[in-house]
Structure formats: C-alpha cells, structure tokens
C-alpha cells in the first residue's frame, strides 16, 4: 500500500516537473552541434546565415531595426563592460551575422541573448541591415581595459598567436568571419578567450582552440588586456 502511494506521488511530481519544463521549452535556447562533436566543421553553411549574408543590406533600415538591441548594446553600439555586453560598433557585418545566427541556432550558448536573436524579433534580412548599420558606427575608445600589468607578455602572445588571423592591429577579417578584437571590452575578450580555450564556446574555430591549448589564465588575461587597448585605424 505504502509503495503504491509513494510511486504515485513520485509519478505525479515527475509529471508536474516535466510539464512545467515543457511549457517553457519553446523559450529555451536550442542545442546544436558544436566543437564538442566529432567531425565538427567550423562555420558550416547555414540557410539562415546565407539568407542574411545574401541580403543587400541597408544600413538606414538597420538603424531603425537596431532599436530592439540598443536597450542593452546602447545607441552607439558600445555595449557595457561590466555586464559583458560586447562592443558592436565597427564590427564586421559578416561577424555580427554569424554570431547572431549561431546563437539563434544554438551553436553558441547564450541564454541571455537568445530571446533577442530569434526570428520573432528580427528577421534574417533585419539582422543583415543591423550588422551593416553597426559596422558603420565608430568604435568608441572608452571600452573596458585590463589592469595593464602584463602588456609586454600580452603583446608577445598576440603577435605570435593571434595576429595572423585577427590582424596586427586587431582589425579582424570580414571575409573569413574573424572578428575585430581591437577596442573590445577587456572582460568580454577574457571570457570569450577562456571559453574558447575550454570548449565552452562551442562555435569556436578549432584552429583557435589549438592555439589556446597551453595558455594559462594569466596568459588569457594578458592577451585580452593587450587586445582591449588596440585601436583600429578608422
């Protein structure tokens, strides 16, 4: 008698837990294959992304569409250092499109961002317009910086390991989807570099993960500090 009662109570509890999860399930970020998956190919073709990339972007339409983003990323695209809202001004449009679509599809985990990346708030075309608009904005120089204690090490690491893809001045490469790292918030750079090293950033390029494999936390901090102080020539 007691066992039946216990098992029915447990079943009821399980039912309640599972249904309440199901009710919210549609708002949870999906989980798509990333670097943890065998055979992962970085930046594989994706229909959503291709639609955005193929769209003839209109930066003035992008300014209007950007309103739903500026509540966190600020009207000038400068984001917020303390909250790890990245600085978006001047970033390559292709990079913004790729990261947005990776979040939308769940290739990059970001539950804070996910609700604002879906097609319910922005279409693929609008993302392209917003990316074109942000690319035109001048990168502010007031981004968050590190403590400046280890810059020579940071510079040595950057020039040896990072400049070949991200550019000597941190300008990135739009065609290859390598982000501009110059003028980005230090804490955001540190977090993303660390997460890439530790496979937490699942849409990372395997080349980058290889390069970062032997970085200590101090190395991550030094190179991030150095990058935060790079200025683009715009």
């Amino acid at each position, binding site marked *: 008698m007691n066992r039946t009662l216990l098992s029915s109570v447990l079943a009821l509890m399980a039912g309640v837990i599972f249904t309440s999860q199901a009710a919210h399930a549609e708002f949870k970020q999906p989980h798509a294959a990333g670097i943890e998956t065998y055979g992962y190919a970085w930046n594989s073709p994706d229909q959503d992304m291709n639609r955005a990339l193929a769209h003839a972007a209109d930066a003035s339409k992008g300014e209007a569409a950007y309103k739903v*983003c500026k509540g966190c990323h600020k009207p000038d695209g400068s984001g917020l250092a303390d909250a790890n809202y990245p600085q978006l001004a001047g970033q390559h449009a292709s990079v913004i499109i790729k990261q947005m679509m990776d979040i939308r599809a769940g290739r990059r985990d970001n539950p804070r961002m996910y*609700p604002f990346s879906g097609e*319910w708030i922005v279409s693929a075309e609008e993302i392209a317009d917003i990316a074109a608009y942000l690319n035109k904005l001048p990168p502010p120089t007031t981004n968050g910086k590190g403590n400046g204690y280890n810059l020579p090490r940071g510079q040595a690491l950057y020039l040896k390991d990072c400049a070949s893809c991200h550019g000597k001045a941190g300008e990135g490469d739009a065609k290859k989807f390598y982000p501009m790292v110059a003028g980005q918030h230090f804490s955001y750079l540190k977090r993303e570099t660390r997460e890439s090293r530790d496979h937490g950033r699942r849409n990372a390029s395997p080349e980058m993960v290889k390069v970062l494999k032997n970085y200590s936390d101090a190395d991550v901090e030094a190179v991030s500090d150095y990058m935060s102080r790079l200025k683009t020539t715009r």
Partner: protein
Amino acid sequence: MRSLAPKYLTAMTCMAISISFASIVQADDAASKTINIAIEVCAGCHGVDGNSLVPTFPKLAGQQKVYLLRELTDYKTGKRVSETMAPFMESLTLEDLPHLAAYYAKQKPTPGIVSNPSLLGVGKTLYLQGNSKTDVPSCESCHEPDGSGSGKFPRVASQHTEYALDQFRLYATGKRTNGARVMKAVAERMTEEETRAVAEYMASMP
C-alpha cells in the same frame, strides 16, 4: 449646344455632388458603424473614448494602431486568450478590426494614476536604462523614452498600473504568448518590485 449646355452642366453637377455625397455617406457609414461598436460593445469596460476607468481594463486611447490591430486579431483568432474579452469579440468581424484600431489610436489618452510615487525614481531608472545585472534591457528601446510606443510596440504611457502588472505576470508565467518571446524574457528577469516601479513610472508619463 446653346440650350443643351446648361442642362448638361446641371445634370453633371448634380451627379458629381451625389457621387461625392455617396462616398462621404459610405465613409460615414463605416465611421458610424465603428463608433456604434465602440459604444455598444467596448465602452462598458474601455470607456467611449478608450479611456477605461477600471484599472484592470487597459486604456486604449492613443494606442498604436498596428499594435491594437494585432491584439484584436489575436483575440479573434484565439492567439491571445482572455475569458473577459472572448464574448465581446464574438460580436466583431475581422473587417471591423482595422476601423476600431484606427478609432482608438486617434483618441486622446487621459493622464495615468500614480498610486505609489516613492517608486517613481527606481521605475524611471529601470525604464530608461534597464538592469544590466539581471539583463533587463531598457524599456525605452522599444517603447520609446516617452512611452508612446511605435508600430507593433505598444504605447505604455499613462496606462493603468494594475493592467500593466497583470501583463508582466502573464508574460513571466508564459500565459500570454502572442508576440511575447521578448517580453517573456524581460518579465522573467524582473522582480515583482521592479515591475511595480516600472508600472508606476509608465503611468506617470503623459
């Protein structure tokens, strides 16, 4: 031609006048039908001009036309569920809805009621800057700094605090789902106190 011309002229003038009268009367028909609906179906809760006196029934006066039309359509199709609204929607056809939306959008909203002015400071900060510690974006980014809204983003200025709080709760608990993914995320991230403060600040905006 001498004797015909005045007749033709008169006939043509009369036709012209009656044709323009007909279109005015037709337009009048649609407008008066809308006003009749507003009075007979809606005014009991929302007030004749959309300035509802009951704080759980939203003010419609001055609301964004695009937003109103979407909500009315969603009520009609069941995408937005309200036991209160359901019987009233039955007397409306889909053709009525754009006219109703346009009618209320044109009305002048009355000032909102602030019941707890001590919350206005916090409410204003939240409304204009959000809360970066809990990833609540600023409300003004979609609803405009003056709360007037834009297109599909509703006007929130001078709205009843009780109605606003109801909507925050419905969004946070997943019970209001139409057009709601962003608002669900926002409402989930806010505390009860924060929603109260924001509701007061929204009511305070003219």
